[in-house]
């Protein structure tokens, strides 16, 4: 068996080992990789940055712990940016396994700025059937959420004064890891026309650039790269920027393997041809 044939039959665990070794390097030797910002992420940042203190916007934390790695840095940065500017935030959760995690992150960031539930923000909690929830929130928040997550009637919350539905907020930023993004585009922006931006996982992001181009969303934060960009723009950093050195090295190894395996494939084919 030639070298190339051996390479073509390489046990996949060697590849895992290589990835594992290169991913360990940034954990031991800390270094930074420059990250450039893109217009689609800047637009989301500018949308929040240009709001005035007291303005309301809706933040959808529509993901579960499996997508935390990519999406939590976005949520952290956006919440910090909003609370540091004294904006009023209405937060909802359309992912059943994400509600506890969302509440944890929200209360943690709110505590940094001394923000109080009911006065500075409203956490609506979780309701199933995203399409129906979005449609009813477009009519009246109180239809689906008569009480907030903590069991307080929405009518008694100061933050909800004068806010009846999604048309009364400046816009919606949805951080999501599933088809909830489609539902926000279809039933939210499509039905009611409010400004919508989304933050999605890397796997999903290629599917949503078309909506950016058509103007159905005004901004897009794609995966961990988008999260890192947002951290640079807002100055509130968690694991987004930290992940980039890991990404860079792992991508370099994957590229190397793709090149080697292609060379191996063509070399083996050429030999067979002889």
């Amino acid at each position, binding site marked *: 068996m030639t070298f190339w044939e051996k390479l073509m039959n390489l046990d996949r665990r060697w590849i895992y080992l290589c990835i594992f070794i290169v991913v360990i390097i940034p954990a031991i030797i800390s270094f930074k990789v420059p990250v450039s910002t893109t217009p689609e992420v800047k637009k989301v940042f500018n949308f929040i940055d240009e709001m005035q203190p007291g303005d309301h916007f809706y933040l959808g934390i529509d993901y579960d712990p499996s997508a935390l790695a990519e999406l939590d840095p976005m949520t952290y940065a956006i919440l910090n940016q909003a609370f540091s500017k004294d904006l009023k935030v209405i937060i909802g959760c359309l992912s059943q396994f994400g509600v506890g995690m969302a509440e944890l992150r929200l209360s943690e960031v709110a505590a940094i700025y001394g923000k109080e539930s009911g006065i500075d923000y409203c956490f609506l909690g979780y309701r199933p059937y995203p399409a129906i929830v979005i449609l009813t929130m477009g009519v009246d928040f109180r239809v689906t959420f008569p009480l907030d997550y903590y069991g307080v009637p929405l009518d008694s919350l100061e933050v909800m004064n004068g806010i009846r539905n999604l048309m009364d907020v400046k816009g919606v930023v949805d951080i999501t890891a599933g088809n909830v993004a489609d539902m926000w585009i279809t039933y939210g922006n499509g039905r009611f026309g409010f400004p919508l931006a989304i933050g999605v996982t890397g796997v999903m992001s290629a599917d949503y650039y078309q909506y950016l181009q*058509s103007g159905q969303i005004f901004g897009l934060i794609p995966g961990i790269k988008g999260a890192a960009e947002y951290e640079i723009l807002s100055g509130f950093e968690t694991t987004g920027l930290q992940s980039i050195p890991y*990404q860079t090295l792992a991508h370099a190894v994957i590229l190397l393997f793709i090149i080697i395996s292609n060379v191996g494939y063509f070399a083996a084919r050429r030999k067979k041809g002889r």
Partner: protein
Amino acid sequence: MTTVELLWQTLAVLLTLCVFSFLIKDNPFYKFAERLVAGVAAGFWTMLVYHNLFRDKVLLTMQNGQWAYIIPILLGIGMWTRFSKKYSWISRFSIAFYIGISTGISVTVYMYTAIFKQISATIIPLNSITNILIIVGVLCALFYFFFSKAHTGAFGVVSRIGIYTLMIGFGAGFGLTVMGRIALLAQRVIFIRGYVLALIGAG
């Protein structure tokens, strides 16, 4: 780090390692972690549905005398008759209602957002390279899916450009998928690194 936090984080690190052990081969540690997740998720979801749906929308509404809710409650109960051979016909009313409502809500907005808005986004002036690429890419990709004519000659060239356009899209999707998967790994490594540093008092 408090003792309780340390215990929880130790458990999280151990479970992370259990899951990663699958990369070597299937083993009892991985199976344990997998089944633990499934069990916890099922329990969590059941209680969530009870508190967010059953209690709020069934128990409390009935207690508060909101009798209009009896209609959806009856339709919901109707769904459960699927388990009975004798009474399963009742579930057809619930399913018909559900499908009817879903279709009525979805068809118009889907047509608007997924078709009309997307088509109108391709009706653009040919005044930039981006716009030209969009129009050429969309048209050629659509030509590729035209199967009632052999893909030969000029038509073949156009459909070939279409398949290249699709491949570029798939490539971008694959690249972003790799980025997403590596992000999950990186986040776990960052978490374990933080745990080790906290354990040795360097974090």
